[in-house]
């Protein structure tokens, strides 16, 4: 869940010729910082209104570990100080989504998330969304101390609406709204299919997407520019596939179906795209952002 919103989404002209208008100021804003701002707002609102964090200290630990590792590893490997927006979002995501009574899972999950970006790479491109990778690994390897049930924000509509509006606006700004919309539509359609197959109430199948974990999943995880394919139609196809795999996992009663679905589909799609590009000399050498 690391929306390292790249500089390519920012209008260069507006940055170089700032307009006095508010809109111009907005357009000149480095949109890499939108995601950290949004997730910080979500964290603050959730904590102040509901107190949804396991504890301040655990979340702080997750963020701190993510930042430190990003700085150290980034500096050593690339010889420059990395932009910390991505690591910050990864750390905060771990701090929100991991639920554990112990401290160490927060540190280990954050560390795994960040290091996975540097270790699990193919042709200079990392495959997994970092926090998606870290959380899935922890859920599989440490189920006795780690969980991530999506109930810790309260189940009321108002905070959801605020998150949806704010999130949609920001995602629209960075031109990735089509990914979110495609996923939501796919989920709803497949919820109907699941309801038809299982005989369970349709609203029971829809229920998860009305929960807060999905807001993070939709706005941050599946839209991560670094770990999604590059074409618009490809991005839509991939999230359709994520929703489909999620449905299959749900039919097998996997509690963390969306996380696992992205864990499986995301890297596979990336690998296919990397392979596809490698067959085309003109694009094969194009550098992928870190």
């Amino acid at each position, binding site marked *: 869940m690391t929306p390292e919103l790249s500089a390519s989404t920012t209008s260069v002209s507006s940055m170089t010729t700032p307009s006095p208008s508010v809109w111009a100021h907005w357009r000149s804003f480095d949109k890499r910082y939108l995601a950290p701002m949004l997730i910080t707002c979500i964290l603050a609102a959730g904590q102040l209104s*509901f*107190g949804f*964090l*396991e*504890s301040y200290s655990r979340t702080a630990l997750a963020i701190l570990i993510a930042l430190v590792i990003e700085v150290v*590893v980034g500096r*050593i*490997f690339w010889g420059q100080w990395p932009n910390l927006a991505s690591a910050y979002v990864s750390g905060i995501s771990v701090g929100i989504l991991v*639920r*554990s*009574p*112990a401290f*160490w*899972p927060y540190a*280990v999950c954050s*560390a*795994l998330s960040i*290091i*996975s970006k*540097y*270790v699990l790479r193919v042709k200079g491109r990392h495959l997994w969304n970092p926090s998606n990778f870290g959380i899935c*690994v*922890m*859920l599989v*390897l*440490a*189920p*006795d*101390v*780690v*969980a991530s*049930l*999506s*109930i*810790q924000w*309260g*189940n*009321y*509509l108002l905070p*959801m609406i605020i998150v949806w509006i704010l999130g949609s606006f920001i995602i629209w700004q960075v031109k990735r709204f089509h990914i979110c919309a495609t996923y939501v539509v796919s989920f709803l359609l497949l919820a109907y299919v699941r309801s038809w197959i*299982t005989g*369970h*109430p349709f*609203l*029971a*199948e*829809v*229920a*998860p997407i*009305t*929960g*807060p*974990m999905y807001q993070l999943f939709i706005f941050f995880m599946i839209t991560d520019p670094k770990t999604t394919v590059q074409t618009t139609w490809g991005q839509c196809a991939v999230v359709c596939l994520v929703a489909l795999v999620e449905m299959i996992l*749900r039919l097998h*009663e*996997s*509690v963390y179906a969306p996380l696992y679905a992205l864990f499986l589909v995301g890297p596979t799609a990336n690998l296919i795209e990397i392979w596809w590009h490698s067959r085309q000399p003109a694009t094969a050498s194009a550098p992928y952002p870190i």
Partner: protein
Amino acid sequence: MNRRILGVMLGILFVGLMATPVVLNRVSARHTPIAVDAPRDAVMARYGFCFQEVAKAAGIEFTHQVPNLDPQLAPIMPMVASMGAAVSIVDVDRDGWQDIYVANSGEGSRNRLYRNRGDGSFEDVAAAMGGADVNQVGTGVSMGAVWGDYDNDGYEDLFLYKWGRPELFRNEQGRRLVRVTADAGLPSWINANTAIWLDYDRDGRLDLFIGGYYAEHVNLWKLETTRIMPDSFEYAKNGGRKYLLRNRGDGRFEDVTEKLGITSRRWALAATAADLRGTGYPDLFIANDYGVSELYFNDGGVRFREVGKQSGVGFAPKSGMNAAVGDVFNQGQFSIYVTNISEEGILLQGNNLWVPKAGTSGEHLQYENLAREMGVELGGWSFGAQFGDLNNDGSLDLFLTNGFVSADRDKSYWYDFSKIAGGNTTIISDAQNWPPMEGRSLSGFQQKRVWINDGTGQFFDVAQAVGITDTSDGRAVALADLWNRGALDAVVVNQQGPLLLYKNTVVPDHAWIAFDLEGRDSNRSAIGAQVRLFWNGHEQVQEVSGGSGYGAQNQRRVHFGLGKEAHIEKAVIRWPSGKVQMLTAPQIGQIHQVKEPA
């Protein structure tokens, strides 16, 4: 160093991090208790006590029955009708032997009052005395009972809380239980899962607190709507109201709930009262399902002030199902144990052991959760728990029941539960939207825990080794010295399962002392009286309770384990009236009958 070497090192670190959970799991697995099938002598030598299940041999054969609620709830009936197995200890006839009252929850089922014959056997006298036939169709079913001498005649009276019409029975000389509900001023219908006796204003008369679960306007047998479920899994506020009923002294109770500042509509499952700040007035702790716990400071008996967030206990919402207090560090202060839900890989709320923060007291009292550090965090889908010195070593131990719905062993409802629990309030609050259970289990077949306290703040689970091996769906547990031998026995009731009577045997070199208190200016049950015992450089405080745990009430008698070579300096009794009485070097190995001085 070149980048290739750095890359290899990073890879090694990555693999090491991946292996961390596995390694930690193996390390923690090394701290296993003694084998389940170890010889009894070995268990006694190592832990100092051992249980033996003797219900049948003692003449008790009881299986809890569950209600059959409105057919609209049929798809999720096992989950809705999942409570009601409750037990309370009382010496109903003042013969010096502790008796057992058990709630039943099937329509038409009978509650039981097992009178202790004093010879190791029990007889059911509920029907003969009048406290059995309390679950008639149309009146609701029992969820629990608490005993307290509300009329100060020397005999403990019975308050029965139900999903339905609550009942009050006056105990007439230990021979009859006379129903006095009609004139008592009780609410006509509640869906309550907890009630306790307390003398909140210290006027010498026992008052009553009742905690509602489902809203009181809901008749679970005749639903007008299926929108009766919690409106949030962790922040629900559409539960039953609370009742604080002041005893007027004329057989009637007056509703002072709102007047005294209690307006919560959270889903209460357990409550207990104790003087947590040394003011002399009992404070009130409520463990709520689907939300945060609530702590009410009692301001001089004229106001209850909710201080959950301020004190630290009302911050993280969980699924509170138990409230019990105990002086776990022998430092003269109460810690509070709240049980929650822990299911591996799905939901790890962890139980809470709220320990007073060092340096905080009185108005500024704060708590921190040390359940993990002290080893009492993960039990399962936990329900009732009680503190008691099970091996008489001088430190309070903890007995915990677990397990929610045991049905098909191979099929779990957890996936569907998690699906709906994360949903929006309009979805989760309507029972019609909940997927059917279809015979599946939900945290079923779980073991109970017996955590022994090593005296340094560490607890170790020895349940299997000391003979607590059943895996029925545990609900209430009550501790009492049923054989007057100076050992705390455990009565466990399981939902839709058997009552289990665990007789305790303690090594003889661990000393003990107990106090049976009787108030004079204070309420005669002495509920709220504190006994502070000083021995061998230790200090432990206990308080006579009008209900604690989940659906349970321990014996009113306070029992202290003392360990080896004990020398008691003194016992200081602070009565609810405010009087302080000191007993110098009371005799060890005795049950002391103490009356409040004039």
